[in-house]
């Protein structure tokens, strides 16, 4: 997802350089310029949400802990990877690639645990995208 500050910058630029100059009527033109000015102030007031990343991190920690207990020594050796979402991507690929070796039951259980975590990650992202049900 693009950062809030990047988007503020681009929306302000669009209002100033694209929208406002194209408006002939003085009142809406002044409103477009003023919206750009106000958004510039607002962008200084806003901080990126950190709680979402923290929640996601906790979800991933729980999942890796849970899965390493469940799969014992069968999991791939990526525990040192610092990007936990990249680590989860690799774990998902590994599970599908090792499906036969793991057996259908173990695969299904591990996949269920992964999907439960994915649901929690999605719910965090949907706090911003705005369609959490």
């Amino acid at each position: 997802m693009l950062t809030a500050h990047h988007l503020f910058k681009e929306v302000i630029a669009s209002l100033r350089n694209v929208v406002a100059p194209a408006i002939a009527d003085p009142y809406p033109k002044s409103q477009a310029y003023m919206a750009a000015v106000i958004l510039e102030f607002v962008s200084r007031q806003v901080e990126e949400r950190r709680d979402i990343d923290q929640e996601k991190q906790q979800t991933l920690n729980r999942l890796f802990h849970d899965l390493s207990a469940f799969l014992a020594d069968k999991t791939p050796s990526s525990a040192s990877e610092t990007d936990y979402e990249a680590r989860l991507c690799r774990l998902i690929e590994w599970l599908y690639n090792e499906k036969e070796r793991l057996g259908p039951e173990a695969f299904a259980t591990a996949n269920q645990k992964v999907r439960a975590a994915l649901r929690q990650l999605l719910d965090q992202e949907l706090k911003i995208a705005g369609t959490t049900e």
Partner: protein
Amino acid sequence: MAESTQDKIVSYLYKKVPSAKNLSLSQFVQTAVGWSHEIYVFDAQWKENGQEKTQGFCLRKDPGSGLLRTLSDLKEQYRVLQALEPTPAPTPKVYWFEEDPSLLGGPFFIMEKVPGEATNPWSKVGKQYYAEAAKRGKLPRSFIEALASLHNLDWRAAGLDFIGVPGPGNDFALREVAKWESLIQRSLRKPEPVLTEVLMWLKANAPKTQRLAFVHGAYRTGNLMIKDDLISAIIDWELQVIGDPMYDVAYVLSDLNREGSPLLSCVVERDFFIDTYQQLTELTIDFDACRYYEILYMMRSTAFWLSASGLFAEGKSKDLRLARTTYSVPVVLNMAAKALGF
């Protein structure tokens, strides 16, 4: 003063119609619907051998940095439309393809201006238009007939195999997944574990194709020109493939293309579509395959949105419509997750 786009088109048309005199353009409109191409629609008037001539044209141009640039080739689109011209599929006639980017700033081709309109089904007015047309009854049947005309096509005889022919079994589905995964890999700016799960599921569950057909790849209202409640042309030829006809059927059956309307693609009743399509194509709709392709479409949409927001993030486009798609990624992944049961 710099030469306008209209002036450049007039110069080009003089080259293509050397006997033309007093050539001018009117009703010149750049349509705002496309994200991946620039489209200009206009009428041209000229004198030729002492006679007044008027013809409507549509110019489709590669803007260079639009969406799907790596997956969509303007020359291929031109050749596909050329191949479709003698077939029963309703398509615009194409006239000239121009590879030289110096003329208009990118390759382009010129085709006929087809009568009718491709009303956007997402607007309130559009929904109402399609709902009323559905009640009148001609358009729903025409919608199915046009789709069947593609799926019944002898694509080898039409010379369409140049776009690539998948192997037997589940090769088509796997090729399609790989195609969109390549766009994801080019666009992805951070790991997306939900998308990884969707991709791995798609690879592990690819269905077999019952028969290979010529598939549009985005068959829905909005990509169809309509005149007097009949499909006058199927447009937006970017994603066509030789593949499983269920790929198009799934797109029609999908909720993705009706946004709350009870009608498929906002225009046709589900049962009527299923019965008429099966009758016209002698195919049996494979609902399991359609469910699979619907999830593939969700992955495809994700790839599309990642590509769009990626273009914006990299500064290759300043179009805020592309920036907005950054928020569409989790929404469509949520749809895929729900379809997969989580």
